[in-house]
């Protein structure tokens, strides 16, 4: 009980500090206008907009890939050395520090594939980094669907794919979506992987395609907090507050969604 309280304490303290020091700056204008005066004033709109781009593109890449991988591992692959190596690789991928992912992203996407520093390169890097998250979440929710359902379906003459389509996937969707939302909150906050691959210090324009660079909230926070002189105190706190609000919102959504789905669980 005490330990649990201790766990909640830091979260509350962080939130309280942020609200106390940065709450005053939050306004519609702050959210929807550009930084001015060498980023010492104005709003955060380009960064907010860029973060949405980065997350959306990363999701478009990692969700299909991750779900497909999990389907293969859970429904098709037998238990052999090959699958075991894949599983090991997934676990290891989850353990790789994000700065290493960043350097990999520079090498692979920016240079080798020639995407340059762009939203595409940054999102690909983020996608690779969060892939384990979505694979594990999907795999677990697939395996939570009772085996008897599959057998009943197979016995009717359904193929593996028909069984997955009609019975397994519809019942695993809640877990998969939870994984997706968690991925969103993780991707939103990451700084290192996008720093060298697509996020810019400051841009006077908004990105128009995935081949443009973009600003991003997390990097913007790092920049205004450490790289720019004479920034008023409440500005970085305000940025941090927006960032954490997005993450908390996503997490709460995920929890609420999971509870809602569990409430109408069908077996």
């Amino acid at each position, binding site marked *: 009980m005490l330990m649990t309280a201790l766990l909640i304490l830091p979260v509350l303290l962080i939130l309280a500090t942020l609200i106390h020091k940065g709450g005053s700056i939050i306004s519609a204008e702050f959210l929807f206008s550009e930084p001015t005066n060498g980023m010492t004033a104005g709003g955060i709109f380009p960064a907010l907009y860029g973060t949405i781009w980065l997350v959306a593109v990363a999701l478009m890449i990692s969700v299909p890939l991750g779900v497909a991988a999990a389907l293969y591992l859970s429904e098709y692959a037998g238990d052999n050395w090959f699958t075991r190596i894949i599983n090991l690789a997934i676990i290891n991928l989850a353990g790789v520090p994000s700065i290493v992912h960043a350097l990999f992203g520079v090498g692979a996407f920016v240079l080798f594939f020639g995407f340059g520093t762009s939203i595409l390169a940054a999102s690909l890097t983020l996608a690779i980094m969060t892939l384990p998250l979505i694979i594990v979440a999907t795999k677990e929710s697939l395996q939570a669907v009772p085996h008897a*359902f599959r057998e*009943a*379906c197979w*016995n009717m*003459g359904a193929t593996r794919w028909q069984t997955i389509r009609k019975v397994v996937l519809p019942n695993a969707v809640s877990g998969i979506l939870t994984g997706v939302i968690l991925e969103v909150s993780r991707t939103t906050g990451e700084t290192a992987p996008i720093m060298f691959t697509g996020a810019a210090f400051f841009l006077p324009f908004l990105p128009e395609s995935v081949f443009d660079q973009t600003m991003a909230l997390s990097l913007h926070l790092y920049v205004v907090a450490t790289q720019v002189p004479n920034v008023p105190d409440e500005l970085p706190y305000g940025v941090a507050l927006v960032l954490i609000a997005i993450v908390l919102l996503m997490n709460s959504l995920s929890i609420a969604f999971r509870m809602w789905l569990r409430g109408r669980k*069908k077996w």
Partner: protein
Amino acid sequence: MVAAAQETVGTPGTEATVKLEVNGVSISYGAQTILSDVNLSIREHEIFGIIGPANAGKTSFIKALNRMDMFTPSMHVDGQVLIDGRDIRSVRNVYALRSQIGVVFPLPVGLPLTVYDNVALAPRLSGTKNKKKLDEIVERCLTRAALWDEVKDRLDSLGSLLSGGQQQRLTIARALSQEPQLLMLDEFSIAVDPVTTMRIEDVLKELKSEMTIVLVTNLVQQARRLADRTAFFLEGECVEVGITEDLFTGEVKDSRTRDYVEGRFG
């Protein structure tokens, strides 16, 4: 279908075509053999009972008959199974084979779909899309499984929320929706109350005229009530196959059978 299907088996008084022939079937999981050298034949339009204690290999036997070993990596089946004279190993489209065999499990598996979708699933899998035709199939199968009256007003509610006995009848309706030639029931009455069991038994007696039924059961009296002929499995061995009534009146080839049906085992 094929010439072999016309072959008759010479049991005095009964002339019937062989639906299913099992020659020297052995089943093993890894290094462990759980059923060895089963030889028997099942005739068209009969209820064929399989009795025997737990671990006799009854369920695995049923699995082997519709090639479910394909989905069980460690399961290995030797020997030959002929359905209508055709070796099921040589069947290229196993899915079509399975769609002709209805299976009912010990514990009811109401898929987490609506009652309607549960029964319409198999026809849909085999390509029936016509709503009217599906309606027809659903009503017919539910009626025959003695469930229609209880669920006709809530076809849109979830099948998995029905009571145990209803779910089992739903499973049977689902199996019937495949229009199977062969219906295999694996201890269907385990999770069903006696009254419902009797109702299902009546249904089975009626279905006999349209299909061949394999009935695995722990209840020897159920086999006696329903089965025309019965096989007794014990510890991975098919001890004997005979006319059901004979097994119960003591006309057995093996004394273990008599001990079992009289409940004097162990």
